[in-house]
């Protein structure tokens, strides 16, 4: 379903270094690592927003790095993404933000759109927020609206960049549980970047850890929790002493 093969990407310095990764279909994959490890860049490469200098990124069986704009849009129609900064459209209301992907993909039945929007808002515990503008929301509320928009199309591949950042522990756990439930119902393949390791590991099937642009660990959640790799062990268990 998703496969990266020897991917290299650099800006001023290398941010992805020879990353190879395979995420099976229907898997919820957690991507962890310290800041500036290359996690968000990897997600953007998967969404076709960044092109690697070397290596191959395959989504739905085809390499996306060489696609033209039209072919890339066809792939993106099957991908949902939540951004670290939420990326809500400031000039649109909450309801319009959530409905935006539906309308742009040709849905015209306003009753159906309103029902899908209301369903998503209930799922993220924000019923009645339809008419609010993003500027009037707290950071956590914006994050939840972002989650609602990312899940409204029931995409086959969903990429979440810090879906619980800025949320209180209870809402955070609710969001992780919601995303897990959504993923299981839709059978979607999900890659989730999160710094909330404890909660992330309650929902993931597999986990990868990045450090300085390289993927240093790839295995099941249980393997990650029991890993003896000093960096993985320190990071997963939040230990102060260690190589990090």
């Amino acid at each position, binding site marked *: 379903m998703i496969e990266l093969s020897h991917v290299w990407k650099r800006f001023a310095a290398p941010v992805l270094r020879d990353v190879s990764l395979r995420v099976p279909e229907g898997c919820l994959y957690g991507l962890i690592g310290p800041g500036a490890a290359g996690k968000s860049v990897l997600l953007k490469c998967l969404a076709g927003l960044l092109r690697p200098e070397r290596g191959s990124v395959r989504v739905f069986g085809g390499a996306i790095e060489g696609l033209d704009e039209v072919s890339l849009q066809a792939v993106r129609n099957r991908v949902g*993404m939540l951004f670290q900064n939420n*990326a809500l459209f400031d000039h649109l209301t909450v309801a319009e933000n959530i409905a935006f992907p539906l309308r742009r993909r040709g849905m015209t039945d306003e009753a159906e759109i309103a029902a899908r929007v209301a369903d998503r808002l209930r799922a993220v515990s924000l019923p009645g927020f339809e008419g609010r503008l993003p500027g009037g929301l707290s950071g956590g509320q914006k994050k939840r609206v972002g989650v609602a928009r990312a899940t409204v199309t029931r995409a086959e591949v969903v990429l979440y960049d810090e879906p619980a950042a800025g949320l209180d522990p209870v809402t955070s756990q609710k969001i992780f549980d919601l995303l897990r439930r959504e993923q299981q119902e839709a059978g979607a393949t999900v890659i989730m970047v999160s710094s909330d390791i404890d909660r992330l590991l309650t929902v993931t099937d597999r986990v990868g850890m990045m450090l300085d642009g390289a993927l240093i660990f790839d295995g099941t959640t249980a393997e990650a929790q029991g890993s003896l790799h000093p960096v993985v062990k320190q990071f997963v268990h939040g230990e102060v002493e260690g190589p990090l």
Partner: protein
Amino acid sequence: MNPEETGLPAQTGRAVLSLASDLGGVAVLAGRLARRLVPPRLDGPELWRNLHRMGVRSLPIVGVTALFTGGIMVIQAGVLIRRFGAEGLLGWGAGFATLREVGPILIALMFSGRVGANNTAELATMTVTEQIDALETLAIDPLSYLILPRVIAMVVMLFVLTVYGDVLALLGAAFMGDALLGVSTATFANGFLETIRVWDMATGLIKSSLFGFVIALSSSHFGLAVTGGAPGVGRAVNASVVASATGIFVCDYVATYLLK
């Protein structure tokens, strides 16, 4: 080139590279937008929204600027008009200067300050908050959805605002000519109609269309090319306003030479 070098050659080199990068960026953006015109791929509702907010909401500021500009031209020319008894030339002088030069330039500069700067700030904010990336992941082409409607709206509305501003500037000049110099409106109108050709007005409107492209392309380029978060947005707006103003004067020089 070592980015820490501060000598004159290094600074000159960096400035040249930066200029070349921005000119290249604007040219690439223009090319990519042109490809979306055949067949037309743009968002209709976005176009109407931009026509309204860029054009209709600019009417007051352009109107005030134009009225006072017309009046100021007469005040400045009043001494010479009186000294040489050239009241009959007031309509020609005001009309020629307004239609060919002052109207298009001043209105373009006002438009750049109001609409161009706003466009850069909005696009830059959307870029740093990943809204542009979000559009792309939603399989929406940002150039067709966001940029092309803005470019078309800016070119069209600057043209329309120039016509509107020219009319108001001439009215301001006629009013001040009557009030300050005692030149009747009929004399002003005769001087204008007998000497001003359609080409004089067309020259100004061709220039205003060029200025519209300059403002639209530079403001969009700097908005999309922003880096560095919130401080980057400020730098992008600053660069956009400077580049637009410079571009307007360079285009004016070339157009004046070619359309003389």
